[in-house]
């Protein structure tokens, strides 16, 4: 459903990505791994249009784009989470999730000011959808708490919820398990697998925890210094000499 072809991205003289191509199949969990600074986050940023690559194309479904922009990506059904939590700190969990559905709400300004009839109905209708996600992620007890007051692990979960609220076709997760303890990681893995199963969402994720990556992903892309050095099933990648070298280093 998604394929990136020959993407190159440079910031001035720094080549963040060089000629990267890979594809993502419908309904799979695709992991992007690589050492720090390999260009993993830049890759995600290209897919949903935060960065504009100098060369290459991105194909979503049947449409091919030279460049994405974040709004267009959102409209195409791409949602994402960020490496450093990017929640709306001043708002409650509920409002954060409701904001995730902003694109689906289309009452006019005047209707919103009156808060009668259509707007009221819309708010309640979307509230029901959001409550399903709150149930799914088991964050019922904090729904009215401002997110800034929540612990880190829960914030990560809320951010996943905000992305899910948009009912995306493609979900980009940038290190969803960074900085978590083992139990939080297990929970998060379970949520990711369940999202993939229940909602049929295609998932692209970046993760450093190899155990997690090898367990939950269907296929893995390996980047190093902005170049693709491996692509395939977890087992293929694990036995790929270039990947082993990149992670363990080579004797000179």
């Amino acid at each position, binding site marked *: 459903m998604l394929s990136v072809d020959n993407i190159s991205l440079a910031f001035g003289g720094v080549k963040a990505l060089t000629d990267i191509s890979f594809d993502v199949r419908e309904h799979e969990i695709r992991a992007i791994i690589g050492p720090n600074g390999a260009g993993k986050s830049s890759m995600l940023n290209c897919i949903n249009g935060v960065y504009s690559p100098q060369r290459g194309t991105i194909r979503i479904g049947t449409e091919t784009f030279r460049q994405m922009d974040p*709004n267009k990506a959102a409209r195409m059904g791409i949602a994402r989470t960020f490496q450093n939590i990017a929640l*709306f700190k*001043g708002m409650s969990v509920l*409002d954060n999730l409701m904001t995730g559905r902003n694109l689906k709400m289309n009452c006019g*300004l005047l209707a*919103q000011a009156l*808060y009668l009839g259509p707007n009221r109905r819309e708010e309640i209708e979307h509230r029901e959808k959001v409550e399903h996600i709150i149930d799914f992620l088991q964050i019922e007890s904090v729904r009215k708490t401002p997110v800034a007051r929540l612990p880190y692990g829960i914030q990560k979960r809320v951010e996943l919820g905000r992305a899910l609220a948009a009912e995306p076709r493609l979900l980009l997760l940038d290190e969803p398990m960074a900085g978590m303890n083992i139990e939080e990681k297990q929970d998060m893995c379970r949520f990711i697998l369940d999202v993939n199963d229940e909602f049929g969402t295609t998932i692209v994720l970046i993760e450093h925890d190899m155990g997690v990556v090898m367990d939950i992903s269907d296929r893995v892309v390996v980047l190093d210094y902005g170049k693709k050095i491996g692509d395939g099933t977890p087992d293929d990648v694990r036995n790929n000499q270039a990947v082993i070298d990149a992670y363990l280093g080579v004797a000179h």
Partner: protein
Amino acid sequence: MFYREAGQFKTSYAADQQLFPIRQDRIAMLALLVLAVAVVPLIASNYVLTAILLPFLVFALAALGLNILTGYAGQLSLGTAAFMAVGAVAAYNFQLRIPGMPVLGSFVLGGLTAALVGIGFGLPSLRIKGFYLAVATLAAQFFIPWLLVKVSWFSNNSSSGVISAQPVVILGFAFDSPVRKYLLVLAIVALMALAAKNLVRSSIGRAWMAVRDMDVAAEVIGIRIMRTKLIAFAVSSFYCGVAGALYASVYLGSVEADGFNLDLSFRILFMVIIGGVGSILGSFLGAAFITLMPIALDRLLPWAAELLNLNLPAGVTSMVQLVVFGALIILFLIVEPHGLARLWQIGKEKLRLWPFPY
């Protein structure tokens, strides 16, 4: 003990999303409205109505406008008074030049004119943020009053540049006495405050806060940053414009464009900061604080001087007033940077437990 929501169960999302989900809040709000509409006009003197309550309501509306822009959408502005001036002068001209223009219609048109001007001066916000944006809005603050004074057409060629507002007559009913003026302004401000509250709890309000808190994430969700910011400028300037029209035609009666100076903008900014950034209630609390404090100090200082047997010369009182006022503002910002609205919230949380420690 008296303020507990225990036992008030919500069985539908509609009930949970209402304006005041807690029963005690509903009763209190109703009582406040009854007090403001029925009791105050009976007992308040003309002095209290015209010198305290009218400016309080008008400034609360302006603070509300600025709070939408600065508190909710996160765009700092120092041009509030300029947008008020646009509203005031536009409303005056609409009434003057269009025969049979209803007064309320001219207020709305004045507000809409201010909204257009606000969008124009909001354009820099697409590229710059924070202090730099505040400086850009200063351009509005200096340019607009200058333009309104320079082009005498705006003040109907009055030699002094003063516009004398037309009498406020709605459907043949003249709002000429202090009580009537008070009730008119109260009705307008209450309705607009309700509308503002509705906006900030709907999708546009969430979009504003999203842009304020994390604009990259907002963009990724599909919120159009430019549109959201410009709507914030438009709505905010509309509120300021209506406030300006009320300020000129109901509160003061005659006003010159120079009166809408940077000083006024700062006063309204202080109201927002002291009242609570990002709070509808805060706008009212801040406006009350800033309008009441000088009057209260005015009363208290001579009394305190007498008590201490000090013989103060006349000028000193007003000077001390400024000093105390400034000190209070600084104290406030240190003790409670989130303003009076946060204090109110903390008080409510404490009240749930009172009189027990937990």
